[in-house]
């Protein structure tokens, strides 16, 4: 029985329809993500300034970039910010999760309170904290009014300390989310294992340090990846909180890239800084995604 022609065409259509449906998205991603990455990568090798130029200039921009004091400050700030942000968020998130896991009455109220900052825009967070940390209006002023005259907290105006205010605001925004991740991890631990450990005579301390926390390793990994990725991308918060200042004291790679590309007319340098940022994120994300996709086989 030979299938008629139209039914053969129908069969072909049936065959390719799923791929056809996927193709617009794939096209968008290929062009707007991977095409653009290549484009920016190419620009980083050209002498582009205010407008893109296609004259190849070798690695001149990269040499220029690593000679820029601002870039080195940005990287140093990213290191300080990234390490503190990830460490404090993880510790705080874990502690909060463990405390909340003690059959707390009112958990249903506390949990959303810890987590709500994650729903806010970094711009809003930055606006709130900028004011809260302002010595003349915020915390310092309040302490003075409450009678603690010697209290000073002017980090946000201090070149050496300003980057730590970014950490404070960012931790405020993200730690609740890390708490939620750890809490989900804690709730996912087999309760029979905990019972067995109790039968073995484990104290509450050793129950956590020996049994529970080691089992949360995947959560630590996920939290690390998410936080590291947020840290490298951090832009809005700095803009709203300090606008990179005082001076360039809170410059981060993201703000560096933006100002060099769009306000300082150094597009080539900006592009090369973007490439470095991509490389940093890729070095964390790619191995992680690879192992995650592998495991699911």
């Amino acid at each position: 029985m030979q299938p008629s022609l139209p039914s053969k065409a129908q069969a072909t259509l049936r065959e390719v329809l799923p791929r056809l449906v996927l193709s617009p998205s794939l096209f968008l991603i290929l062009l707007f993500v991977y095409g653009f990455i290549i484009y920016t990568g190419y620009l980083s090798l050209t002498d582009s300034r205010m407008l893109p130029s296609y004259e190849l200039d070798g690695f001149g921009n990269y040499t220029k970039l690593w000679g820029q004091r601002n870039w080195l400050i940005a990287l140093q700030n990213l290191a300080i910010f990234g390490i503190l942000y990830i460490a404090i968020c993880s510790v705080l998130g874990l502690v909060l999760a463990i405390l909340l896991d003690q059959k707390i009455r009112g958990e249903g109220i506390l949990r959303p309170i810890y987590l709500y900052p994650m729903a806010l825009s970094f711009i809003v967070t930055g606006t709130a904290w900028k004011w809260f940390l302002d010595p003349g209006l915020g915390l310092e002023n309040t302490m003075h009014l409450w009678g603690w005259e010697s209290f000073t907290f002017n980090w946000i105006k201090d070149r050496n300390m300003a980057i730590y205010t970014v950490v404070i605001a960012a931790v405020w925004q993200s730690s609740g989310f890390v708490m939620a991740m750890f809490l989900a991890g804690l709730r996912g631990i087999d309760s029979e294992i905990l019972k067995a450990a109790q039968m073995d005579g484990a104290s509450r301390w050793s129950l956590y340090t020996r049994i529970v926390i080691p089992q949360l390793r995947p959560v630590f990994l996920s939290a690390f990846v998410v936080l590291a990725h947020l840290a490298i991308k951090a832009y809005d918060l700095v803009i709203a909180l300090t606008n990179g200042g005082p001076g360039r004291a809170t410059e981060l790679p993201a703000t560096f890239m933006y100002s060099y590309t769009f306000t300082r007319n150094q597009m080539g340098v900006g592009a090369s800084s973007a490439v470095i940022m991509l490389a940093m994120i890729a070095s964390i994300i790619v191995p992680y995604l690879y192992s995650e996709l592998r495991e699911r086989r």
Partner: protein
Amino acid sequence: MSRSTQPSFGIEKLLRAALYSVLILFAVYYLLPLFVMLVNSVKTLDEIRGGNMMSLPEVFTFEPWLVAWSKAQIGVEPTGLSPYFINSIMMVVPAVTISTALGALNGYVLTKWRFPGDKIIFGLMLFACFIPFQIVLIPMARVLGIIGMAGTTSGLVLVHVVYGLGFTTLFFRNYYAAFPDELIKAAKMDGAGFWRTFTRILLPSSGPIIVVTVIWQFTNIWNDFLFGASFADFDSMPMTVALNNLVSSSTGVKEYNVHFAGAVLAALPTLVVYVVSGRYFVRGLMAGAVKG
């Protein structure tokens, strides 16, 4: 970890009290900035300058909210934030709708109509979730200019759809991966094709993941600053950019109460979504964090 195993009841009670104190202290820490914003958004400027940011207003005034909404100087005109709020809505609604719809279709194809190479395609889409957007800013500005969408809301919609696709696809893929393949086979045997299987069998069961995706996309796009600041002009500026302009404008007197009212206005839609459906919000965060 039951309490009954503890020997000393008194110490146990003390510990519980300490535990609750710590937890409540942290709640205060998380709530304080919001409290300060709200309280000071209904004070007069004089009271803010002279008074304590923690104290409740002596004179309650709604004026800063009105100014922030309709009078504050943001662009050239003293329009308040209202036009930018509308801009954000005009941007968010289509961007969320389109990216969610495409994500659902992609997830459906990638799990139920698998073909050679689908894993690679998914990997490409997944990695796109994590790129630093700085890497696309320059070419995006060029392309928006070329296709005549520079500085327009539709241009921003396009940008948000493209860079939201990875996440929406991820959400739906993971959700549909857990959807039994036998149901798809049964639908095939029953005579349902590609579309009818999707609309009649999968979509009606996709409520939770649609909510998760919509909330995720809504929050992300509403809260975006970088794309708005890079690609919008004065007429299409979204709320976050307008707020930042308002707050950081160096001209004139700093009207802190208006700034706070504006900040709360900018935060309001996502906060409302969070309060109404926090459960789905958290699920989205988790799904975005735990991949694969």
